[in-house]
């Protein structure tokens, strides 16, 4: 059921938006590629189609991915690693027809930026903040884009594949060294 629905939705989107819609990729859960500039309009259109709830909004960093998760067009070729980019995936659900579709936006890894959909689905607000917190994806038009899970003064984007763990945070050592020698000594002396 899911696949046919996605296909019809894809066709509708393609006629509506033309070039802004990329490919339709068929996997276990198929998704539609969307150009980053027009994601807000596409999302609004999808909501009008009846996809009234955003189940999940996730960002993915494809750096270091061995084989692309989308199936290769040419099966004879050796599976190639995908482009290094940041993807933002929207999983939509319709509470009327019980259909699901997925939209995917691919972004440049150095400065990922795309319009926010928090005005369309309320839940996107926090999901986008989380994506910003974890990947540094900037959502234009978001009411309050700030870190949500990590503290305000945290450095780096933790879920990126090239994230280096901090040595210490505010003087608290991150890797716990063997328990302080002075601690044990002190106990013996007593």
């Amino acid at each position, binding site marked *: 059921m899911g696949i046919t629905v996605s296909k019809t939705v894809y066709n509708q989107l393609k006629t509506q938006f033309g070039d802004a819609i990329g490919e339709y990729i068929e*996997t276990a859960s198929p998704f539609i590629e969307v150009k980053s500039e027009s994601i807000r309009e596409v999302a609004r259109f999808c909501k009008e189609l009846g996809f009234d*709830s955003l*189940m*999940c909004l996730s960002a993915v960093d494809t750096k270091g991915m*061995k084989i692309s*998760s989308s199936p290769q067009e040419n099966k004879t070729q050796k599976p190639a690693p995908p482009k290094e980019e940041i993807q933002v995936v929207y*999983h939509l659900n319709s509470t009327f027809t019980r259909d699901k579709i997925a939209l995917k936006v691919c972004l440049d890894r150095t400065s990922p930026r795309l319009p926010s959909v928090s005005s369309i689905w*309320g839940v996107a607000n926090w*999901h986008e903040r989380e994506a910003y917190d974890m990947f540094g994806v900037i959502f234009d038009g978001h009411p309050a884009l700030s870190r949500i*899970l990590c503290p305000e003064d945290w450095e780096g984007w933790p879920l990126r594949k090239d994230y280096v763990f901090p040595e210490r945070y505010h003087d608290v050592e991150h890797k716990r060294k063997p328990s302080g020698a002075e601690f044990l000594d002190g106990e013996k002396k007593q």
Partner: protein
Amino acid sequence: MTVHGEELVINMGPQHPSTHGVLRLLLKTDGEVVGEALPQIGYLHRCFEKSAERVSWNGVVPYTDRMDYVAAISNEWSFVLAAEKLGNATVPERGEYCRVISAELQRIASHLVAFGTFGIDMGAFTPFLHAFRDREKILDILEMMSGARLLYHYIRIGGVMSDCDSKICEMIKLFIKDMRTRLPEYHQLLSYNRIFIERTANVGIITREQAINYNITGPNLRATGMEWDLRKCDPYSIYDRFEFKIAVGTCEHGVSGDSWNRYMVRLIEIEESLKILEQAVEQIPAGPISAAIKVFKPAPGEIYARTEGARGEIGFYVISDGDLKPFRVKAKSPSFCALSGFHEYSRNLMIADLVALLGSIDIVLGEVDR
């Protein structure tokens, strides 16, 4: 005539008896009335998604346990379902039954905690201990099944860890019988207490539009009168074999989507879960409990799988690049979504109502912050 004074900004949490963990609410109050409540989260951010990328497929399961620690098995199941769909693994019949039994037991246990803690929020301490007394019986059964009391690691890719044998089935039957007599007591103690109804009915209303906009699922959505249960609406596993009703808000007191209905939906769901358990224990077939999978290594691909947890839809967006470890795991947790709209439906409530709202949404911070 109304008098408006200066706004008082007050911090509720991260250590506060009724925030159910380490949630922090920034309240802008005018006297007893809360103008705005802004949730601040992240005090329990345990880097689940980073950890999941760095362990094997089966190794992720214990981490999912620790997300929603009150209902661990629902989380395990959701992740395992995603992995199985990616890797095309099949689960033997008996394994599916074991999963259903454990998940439903877990759902009852989770709702009992919700019932008890909501009682504490309302000032009634005793129902909490009565609920925990009955929860201990479930924990006994789950302990016999998995060996752990709280975080089980029971559901594995391809099946379950250990069998639900006849002795356990007997225990479950006894428990069902016992629990059916307890529920009237709960209603007597709390549900139909006049003060409790006064406190919760018509308080903290979440409308259906708000609920769908903020993707609130599970009991909180069903309390608005909407029949949305993934066990029926998007059936997975073997839930289509069991007869049960979707618990929706009864509106016996108050309007749909208020705190009392959210509370009541959970108690009705306990009854429905008992029904499922009864059928599952009767029907459970003989056979293996787990498919023999030595090394789980799914083909490259991505999937979004969801199950109906105790708090709503638990979704896992999993990407595999054909390695022994998942490439990316994103967890969508119902509490996170429910809390993201909190500022909207907590507007102009009194402080005591805010506690009722928060308690009836039944959040688990481990799941919000992950």
